[in-house]
């Protein structure tokens, strides 16, 4: 969807912000550019919507050299969310969200309908929020409006530059989780910039680690944790790789679809009940999309070896502590 072909960006003061970048953001994935500040990740992102122009090399958008596209037209096809949010304080929330549809010349009815749909999606009931001014909203609500505004014209690509960076930790978690859900629904190609490796591991299908304008490693979160290619990546990822891997690993990847005899008791006890009291405490089942970290902590809490995996109120399998342990030692 977006391809960087030997892209360089040098500034007149001699800074080599992007140094020979070669990689492709695949369609439908969330690709996270991560690295320490000054590594060129934001510049790289801005090369896509031509807020920056490469001094050398080519950026392709859907197979076309971006230089061949009209900048304003290109930008209207790409959703853009920044850390500062940049809401227009003199306009209502509804008018903010309607910005790109209006630039594209949509008719008023279609725009209104779309604005309401997006405010609903972002958990801001239109009846209550559409006519309000951004300055009346909390930081989290403002960034919700920012995301809704970027999604308004149904972009093929979203560029998100530290979108949750200015929020408090609780609101940030909340918005990350919600955005992961929204992302499944809208199925857009996303290029996401952050300096926070945990956010990168959580949000990304692919992670591109950058340093001094160069791409150091481009991999899936699991591969990155299992095989950091350089000392720098290893340090950047942090010493707690095993714990991080637990967060990235999903229950569906380690669960057993059939229930072995020795765990039949647990599953039987669960049938028809939301939670079951065992020796150690309450057994709460997990969902296939939960992380291995959640499964493991519930096992420890309840003092059991295994947990039922439940989807749409039926037991679809079992996840055991040993299965998680085995998977972890394979990786390490």
């Amino acid at each position, binding site marked *: 969807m977006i391809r960087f072909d030997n892209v360089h960006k040098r500034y007149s003061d001699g800074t080599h912000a992007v140094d020979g970048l070669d990689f492709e953001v695949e369609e439908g994935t969330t690709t996270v550019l991560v690295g320490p500040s000054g590594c060129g990740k934001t510049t790289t992102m801005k090369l896509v919507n031509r*807020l920056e122009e490469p001094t050398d090399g080519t950026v392709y958008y859907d197979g076309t050299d971006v230089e061949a596209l009209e900048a304003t*037209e290109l930008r*209207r096809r790409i959703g853009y969310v*920044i850390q500062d*949010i*940049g809401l227009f*304080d*003199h306009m209502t929330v509804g008018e903010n969200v309607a910005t790109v549809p209006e*630039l594209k010349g949509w008719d008023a009815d279609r725009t209104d309908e779309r604005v309401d749909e997006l405010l609903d999606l972002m958990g801001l009931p239109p009846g209550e929020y559409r006519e309000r*001014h951004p300055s009346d909203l909390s930081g989290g609500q403002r960034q919700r409006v920012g995301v809704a505004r970027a999604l308004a014209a149904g972009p093929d690509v979203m560029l998100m530059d530290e979108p949750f960076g200015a929020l408090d930790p609780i609101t940030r978690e909340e918005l990350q989780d919600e955005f992961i859900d929204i992302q499944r629904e809208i199925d857009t190609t996303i290029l996401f910039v952050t300096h926070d490796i945990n956010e990168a591991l959580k949000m990304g299908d692919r992670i591109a680690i950058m340093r001094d304008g160069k791409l150091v490693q481009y991999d899936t979160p699991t591969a990155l944790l299992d095989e950091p290619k350089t000392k720098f990546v290893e340090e950047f990822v942090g010493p707690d790789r095993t714990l991080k891997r637990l967060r990235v690993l999903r229950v569906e990847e380690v669960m057993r679809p059939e229930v072995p005899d020795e765990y039949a008791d647990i599953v039987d006890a669960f049938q028809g009940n939301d939670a079951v009291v065992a020796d150690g405490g309450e057994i709460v089942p997990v969902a296939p999309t939960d992380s291995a970290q959640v499964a493991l902590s519930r096992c420890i809490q309840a003092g059991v070896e295994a947990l039922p995996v439940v989807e749409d109120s039926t037991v679809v399998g079992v996840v055991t502590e040993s299965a998680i342990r085995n998977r972890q030692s394979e990786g390490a």
Partner: protein
Amino acid sequence: MTGVFGLLAATWAYLLANSDRFLELFREHLMLVFVSEAMAVAVAIPLGILATRNDRVKRVVETVGNVAQTVPTLAIIALMFPLLGLGFLPALVGLFVYALLPVLTNTIVGLENVDGGTVEAARGMGMSDWTILRKIRLPLALPVIFAGIRTSTVLNVGTAYLAFFIGGGGLGVWVIGGIQLFNTPQLIAGAVSGALLAVTLDGLLALAERRLGGEAGTGHAATS
């Protein structure tokens, strides 16, 4: 106390006896203020926009503006005499020059203080420079520009008294004439009516400014 009341009574009597003349001078004064102010706004805002888009224009504007600020008001009015002669028009031009600066400065400051993130978001969403100016920068700078117009207008009411010196008419005729002739009721009638005019205009413009500020959300933005 009787002295003050006596003076006020004499002033009131003078006003009533000369109401036709008063209305004429008051109208002249208003004309001087409003026409010069309108001209100043019409020139200062486009010039301010130009200055924020071109560094050379900005440097020239700022230098000229700073020098102009050091020239006494009376000197600017007096300077018009050798250039344009006597009468209403030279007075108008002098007041225009004097009214220009506050509007110009506030236009530049207002436009430059628009949040960088807001402008970047607008550009990133595909707005052209012209659209950004029209739909983002100017509306957000409007309360600041308007504050400049308010300051300039109120100052202008006071400066317009000096129009008398080059035959521009206005309430200065009574005030300065009153001083020269020791006609205190005439002096006070001319001075108080101008003061009331300044206070009234200031209040009205402040009201309008608050409404503008409320719409632009800047009143809230300052606290968030």
